[in-house]
Structure formats: structure tokens, C-alpha cells
């Protein structure tokens, strides 16, 4: 059976060159970067080279890069680190309704510690309005955290505009850029961010490694102790092979970004067009300001998990924002924040394209999906014609 992986927003297949770069650091150059001998020095050089690669990709300085276990840790470090370091200046944080839970739950945890959090709403496309962020600012505000691009619907936020507002009000600005790296240009100065989170496995690198960009002069409180690594912000022996992989992956992902993004956009638009040709479907997310690989549609009258199971039986790997797949009793908070009704949110289908996908993959999905939709709709009590008929 044909296998089609269309869940690249969840994770990606590692680039062969990334694996090749990592391999020697798993088997041969196994020294601890903190050691003084040749083994250690070789590992230290690898870590610092990777730091330069990450910095170069973001338009940052190497010393502004802190390696973490991934974006979840980077988001925690950024938000908790700033909140606690700035608590004498104020206790108010601003974020958006469509953030990843790594941001939302961190803010919720801080709310329990006495911080107040304003969660700004989004429009029907899942986009944050810079004016709404500005309106939420009080004399107690210390940090604004707004994601660059949304993981579910692919909508790209006006981060540079929000960054400008934060600078005007002298606020620290963090952005979760996990979905953006390798898909759209990410430059910390252009975006006017003070902190930015990223994760290697979203751009063909290894899992378990990410980074936080911390603008020079930005003070973070620390909550992990035990070593001097990563300027004490993230103590513990560095994951050298993963760091090497992150460096290589970000270099590759940003070097041919335009060509790859253009290729993905063509596939994305063909897929969207084909899906919207199915009766009673709608596109979720912004029609233009969206990630090049993101497709998110709602298919009315059917539920997302049964759609995913059916696609999986045909070899297609996808994702959904239905309650059954969100791990809770409610459908995706992103789709609900965009104002979708429950049925539309339960029937959402996310297909995220990556470097390995071809036009044949898109054609295959468009070939198998209509049959699946027809089968599930025939079973659905809410589909037109299936209403209760009483004699």
C-alpha cells in the first residue's frame, strides 16, 4: 500500500545530511564538552559550531542562543524566566488564544503564582490583531508572547508589528517560532523579538533538541540548577549529537527556504482546491497568510478521528482538531478561538506537507478521500437526508 506522510507539522523525517552530521558524535566523538582533554575539546567545538549555525540562521549572535530539550522547554524558560525576573516591575502577561499549550499552560501556572494573564482573541482566520495586543497593555505588563505561525491552521501573525508595539511600550516580546523555521524567513531583528523558541524536529532535525534565542541584555530567572552549561540557564551536560543535528538542520532548512516554500505552496494550493471541491467543506486558517505546507479543512457531518482512522487504513497520515484527537473532551482550542461551531471543529482535517511530499501524494489523497467522506456521511445521523423520519 502507498504510504503518504502528511503530518509534517507534528514532526518531520530527519534529513540524511543531518543524520550523517550527527553520527560521529554518537559513536566516535563522545567527549563531554566540559572536559579539558581532546575528547572534550572536540565536543565543545561541535557545540559552539552548531550555536553559530543557529545564530546565523536567525540573524542573531552565537551567545544569544541557549540550547534546550525542545520548544516546550524553551517556551517555559522564556515565559517563566522573564515573569520571575521582572516581577518587581509588574505582574501582567499578554498572550493569545491560539498559542501552543507549552505557552498557554505556562501562563496558567504563573497565574496561580499571582501573575495576571490577558489572552487576546483572534479573528476568524486565527490571526492576532496588533491593536488588540496594544489595547491589553497596562502599567503592570512585563511580557508579551505571541506565536509566529500557528501549528494547526498555519496562519502567520504580524509579529514585526507586535514587536514594534512592544518596543514602544518597553516590553519584552517572546515568539514561539516552532512552525516557522524553514518555512518562512525568521530574523530576530526584523521581527523585533527579544526571545524566540524553536525545535529541530520540525525542520528535519532530531527530536529532543531546541533552542531559545535570548536577546543580549535580557535577564532570565533560572529554575534548574546544577551546572554552568548554557550560561547556567540550562544546566546539564549538552546533548552533543542532537545539538550538532540542530545546527545542520537549521542551516539546510534556511539555505534553500524560498525554493522549498515555493514547491510546497504549489502542492498546498492543489490540495486545498481539491478538498474544497468536496461538498460541504471549508478552509480553516488564512487563505494567503499561511504556512506553505499547511492545509486545514473542515468536512461537515463527519468526525475527525474516524476520518483519520479511515485515511490511515489507506496509508495516509494526517491530524485533526476533533475532541478525540485533542486528548480532551473539547475540540481544538485554536479552532474554537476562531469561532468555529462544534461540528465544524470536530470535522477538521489537517494535512501538513514537507520536503518528501510529491504531487502524486496530493493526487492520492484527493483520490481516496471522497470515498471515505461518502462512507462516513452515509453513516452520519446529521447528514442531509439522514434525519429522523417518523411515520
Amino acid at each position: 500500500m502507498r504510504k503518504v506522510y502528511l503530518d509534517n507539522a507534528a514532526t518531520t523525517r530527519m534529513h540524511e545530511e543531518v543524520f550523517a552530521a550527527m553520527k560521529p558524535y554518537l559513536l566516535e566523538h563522545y567527549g563531554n564538552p566540559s572536559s579539558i582533554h581532546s575528547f572534550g575539546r572536540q565536543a565543545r567545538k561541535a557545540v559552539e559550531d552548531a550555536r553559530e549555525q543557529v545564530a546565523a540562521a536567525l540573524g542573531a549572535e552565537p551567545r544569544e542562543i541557549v540550547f534546550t530539550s525542545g520548544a516546550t522547554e524553551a517556551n517555559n524558560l522564556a515565559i517563566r524566566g522573564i515573569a520571575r525576573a521582572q516581577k518587581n516591575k509588574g505582574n501582567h502577561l499578554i498572550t493569545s488564544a491560539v498559542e501552543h499549550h507549552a505557552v498557554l499552560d505556562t501562563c496558567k501556572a504563573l497565574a496561580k503564582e499571582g501573575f495576571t494573564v490577558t489572552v487576546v482573541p483572534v479573528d476568524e482566520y486565527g490571526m492576532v490583531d496588533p491593536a488588540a495586543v496594544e489595547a491589553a497593555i497596562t502599567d503592570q505588563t512585563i511580557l508579551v508572547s505571541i506565536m509566529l505561525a500557528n501549528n494547526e491552521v498555519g496562519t502567520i501573525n504580524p509579529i514585526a508589528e507586535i514587536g514594534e508595539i512592544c518596543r514602544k511600550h518597553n516590553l519584552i516580546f517572546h515568539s514561539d517560532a516552532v512552525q516557522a523555521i524553514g518555512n518562512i524567513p525568521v530574523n530576530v531583528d526584523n521581527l523585533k523579538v527579544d526571545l524566540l523558541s524553536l525545535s529541530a524536529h520540525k525542520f528535519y532535525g532530531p527530536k529532543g533538541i531546541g533552542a531559545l534565542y535570548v536577546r543580549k541584555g535580557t535577564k532570565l530567572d533560572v529554575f534548574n540548577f546544577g551546572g554552568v552549561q548554557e550560561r547556567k540557564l540550562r544546566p546539564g551536560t549538552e546533548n552533543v549529537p542532537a545539538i550538532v543535528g540542530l545546527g545542520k538542520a537549521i542551516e539546510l532548512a534556511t539555505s534553500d527556504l524560498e525554493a522549498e516554500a515555493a514547491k510546497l505552496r504549489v502542492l498546498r494550493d492543489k490540495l486545498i482546491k481539491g478538498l474544497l471541491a468536496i461538498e460541504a467543506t471549508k478552509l480553516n486558517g488564512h487563505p494567503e497568510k499561511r504556512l506553505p505546507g499547511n492545509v486545514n479543512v473542515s468536512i461537515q457531518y463527519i468526525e475527525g478521528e474516524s476520518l483519520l482512522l479511515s485515511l490511515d487504513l489507506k496509508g495516509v497520515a494526517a491530524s485533526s482538531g476533533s475532541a478525540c484527537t485533542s486528548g480532551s473532551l473539547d475540540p481544538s482550542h485554536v479552532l474554537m478561538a476562531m469561532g468555529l461551531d462544534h461540528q465544524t471543529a470536530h470535522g477538521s482535517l489537517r494535512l501538513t506537507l514537507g520536503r518528501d511530499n510529491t504531487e502524486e501524494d496530493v493526487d492520492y489523497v484527493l483520490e481516496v478521500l471522497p470515498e471515505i467522506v461518502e462512507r462516513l456521511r452515509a453513516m452520519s445521523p446529521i447528514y442531509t437526508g439522514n434525519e429522523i423520519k417518523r411515520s
Partner: protein
Amino acid sequence: MYTEKVMDHFTNPRNVGEIENADGIGEVGNMKCGDIMRIYLKVNEDDIIEDIKFRTFGCGAAIATSSAITEMVKGKTIAEAWEISNIQVAEELGGLPPSKMHCSNLAADALKNALRDLEEKRAAQKTE
């Protein structure tokens, strides 16, 4: 995550559809949680369930439990059908993931609603 039996019922659901002039129709669930099940019953003079059909909007577990209960009930008496519980349906399928036990394991409730509808219709006929 799902057992083979669940996947079998999901892939080849038994008794999908509706019964014209059904003796009892029962529905359960709501759009908020994302599961809606409807069951149609046809019962003969000896109180035996001759035919049963379902339509379900929901996840794999919701569809599989709906399908499974139709097989469990067909040929049983009304009294026997009243005894079937959601837990028995899940057991019939070799178990369900824990997260699905409460939200999507509602087929017995839909059946009970259909049996209630049947009894109400019969009571109404008697008073006519």
C-alpha cells in the same frame, strides 16, 4: 490503540442505516462532545428484536460500539435488550482505550432510548 475487533466493526460496520416505520428510535449524545448515535428497532409480536439499524457521528469507538450493539441485540427479546450495558458492549469489543470509556461508549444508552420510545408508542396505541 484500538483492538482488532474495534477496527473490524469500524471498517465493516454492521446494520448501518435506518428502518422505515421503526417501532422505536433512540438517540444519544450531543455535538459538543462530538458523538451522536441513533438506533432504529423493529420488534415482532413475540417481543423479539427482528431488526436493528444505526447511524452514528463520532470517532472510531463510537462507530464500533454502535455496530457491535446491533449484533448483540438482534434476535434478543426486549427484556434481554434492556439488560445490555455500555460496559458489556466495550467488553464485546475486547475493551476500549480508557479515554473512550465515558465519552464514546454510549450505544447501550441509545438502545435504551429506542426501547423507551418503543414502550411509549405501545402505550399510546393501547389508549387509542
